[in-house]
């Protein structure tokens, strides 16, 4: 696939502090690329460098093979959907969407056609004359997206645009954004600290921490095979256990929990286990798993996402275990002792 955006060794230094350190990555044309990281990791700085609002301290940005250095934001083939949406409050929906087209000095009829076409795409027909202050959160969202998309940018940059919405609407907009992106084929670069947004929508996700990229991968790989301890802890839920020692095929946690984990060629410091990696009462003939006993402490009922907090019998280490989606363990209660197993490969050591 064509690389629409190439970033090479991009660095941004502010006074006495490096916000983005030597970041390199490519984005394929038509892709949905997310940059996921905790607040303050430098993701917004990165986005603002791509859009041209701040100047990089080092490195290069190429859009469609063209070096962007020194090109001001208004001349770059990218548009941003701002975190605050930044809709112009003194204009109605139509005027907001037409703002960029008017700057291109297009004919009025052409502007009108493009605006109504765009509004139809985001299902906002009939809202042309409405003030943006009269719209609901989701509608404002779509106006902001329409305003940027009508410019036919090579890349649409989205800076946590769902942050201000309530949970229900956010879930809904996630799907809508993904469908819209598929339909239009525009390349999206999406910035978020919400791992579920990144995983659900993206073709590729870059996990960012302290100005660096920890891993760039498909959402599935990111979840299944986190490359670093940070990714394992940040993406999805995990039990984090600090390790004390390694002895042949066995590792021991600080609590003194000894697990079999063959195939490690280094001495790990920390162990991550996903709640769903635990197999309750594994079959006797199952191979390649570490087996141990846990005592149920509490049951945290949450519909399909029900978990139990349990204590490993030999060491007292506390772990969260997902309950499988069947009735088999419905009778589980506090104080029960259960045998549990984990596949070796699901014991992620770093």
């Amino acid at each position, binding site marked *: 696939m064509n690389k629409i955006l190439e970033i090479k060794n991009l660095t941004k230094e502010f006074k006495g502090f490096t916000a983005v350190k030597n970041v390199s990555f490519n984005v394929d044309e038509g892709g949905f690329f997310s940059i996921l990281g905790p607040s303050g990791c430098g993701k917004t700085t990165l986005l603002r460098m791509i*859009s041209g*609002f701040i100047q990089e301290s080092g490195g290069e940005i190429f859009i469609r093979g063209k070096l962007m250095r020194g090109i*001001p*934001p*208004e*001349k770059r083939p*990218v*548009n*941003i959907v*701002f*975190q*605050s949406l*930044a809709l*112009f*409050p*003194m204009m109605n929906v139509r005027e907001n969407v037409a*703002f*960029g087209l008017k*700057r*291109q000095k297009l004919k009025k009829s052409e502007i009108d056609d493009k605006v109504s076409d765009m509004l139809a795409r985001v299902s906002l027909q009939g809202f042309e004359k409405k003030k943006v202050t009269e719209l609901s959160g989701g509608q404002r969202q779509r106006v902001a997206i329409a*305003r*940027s998309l009508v*410019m036919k940018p090579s890349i649409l940059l989205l800076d946590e645009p769902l942050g201000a919405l309530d949970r229900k609407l956010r879930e809904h907009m996630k799907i809508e954004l993904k469908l819209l992106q598929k339909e239009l084929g525009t390349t999206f670069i999406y910035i978020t600290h919400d791992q579920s947004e990144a995983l659900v929508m993206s073709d590729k996700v870059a996990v960012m921490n302290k100005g660096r990229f920890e891993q760039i991968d498909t959402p599935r790989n990111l979840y299944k095979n986190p490359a670093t301890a940070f990714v394992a802890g940040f993406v999805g839920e995990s039990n984090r256990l600090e390790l004390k020692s390694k002895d042949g095929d066995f590792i021991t946690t600080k609590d003194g929990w000894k697990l079999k984990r063959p195939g490690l060629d280094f001495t790990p410091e920390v162990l991550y286990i996903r709640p769903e990696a635990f197999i309750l009462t594994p079959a006797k003939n199952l191979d390649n798993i570490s087996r141990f006993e846990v005592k149920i402490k509490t049951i945290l009922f949450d519909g399909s996402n029900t978990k139990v907090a349990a204590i490993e019998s030999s060491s007292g280490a506390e772990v969260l275990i997902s309950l499988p989606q069947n009735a088999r363990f419905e009778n589980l209660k506090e104080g029960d002792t259960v045998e549990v197993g984990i596949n070796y490969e699901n014991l992620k050591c770093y």
Partner: protein
Amino acid sequence: MENKKGFNITFYLLILPVLLWLIVLIVLPHLDLLISSFQGDSDAGGKVFTLEHYMAFFQSKIYWLTFINTAAYAIGITILAFIVTFPVAFYLTKVISKKYASFLALLLLIPLWVGELVTVYGWMIILGDHGVINEFLLSIGLIDKPIDMLYTNFSMTIGLLYISMLFMVVPIMSTLESLDDSLIEAASDLGASKWTIFTKIIIPYSMPGITSGGIIVFMLVIGDYVAPDILGGKSSLWFTEQIYNEFLSTFNWGEGAAFGFLLLMISSSIIWLALKLTGQKLERVGS
């Protein structure tokens, strides 16, 4: 909240001074003036209803010419105040850091602390024949005799601008403060030039502040007496001086009162017209 109608005694005690102030010092004198503006002396020496005081304004050219001159200057000074203060307000709210902004905004208030009269005398020292500017220009040899600046429409304009400017800065600053920087960035991202951002985003956004600042400055200037009287000298025609003369020189209280109400009504009409022409609504002003 349930005691909505039954306001208690404390409420009435708290509102009493304000009500007294309003009624005794504002409403009653105005009513008295309104009555005397319609009162004339009959042949028998009694009081009769008359419109002659109001008619005098329209019949005598000097009166309404003075008014037109005053209103034109007030409009001009309002526009000048906007031109001078908008960059200041923008700089204080959007360009420099908050820390310095509040200090500089405080500096802006200083002329207000010393009072109008002192400020005006200050300008006399600066603009006079032997004032700071003339002495400086003479000493460097740029001019060989002092330029007449004091007691002209120029010095009056400077003085009025100076005392009213602050009332333009503050409302504009408060609207600009609520302007989200990302609006400016979004406009720039959509291809707008600096000029377009200024005319299509920043000015329309700060319009409520500009309007309320404009109303205050216009009213303040059109009703000012000190600056035109001291800085404008005898050559300047200012309507408030006309009113002053009616009351204190010719002792024609009826005409003075009538002129006072004419000033109030005509200047209010000018504001109303300006609001209509720019499509502003009074309710939105200052919000």
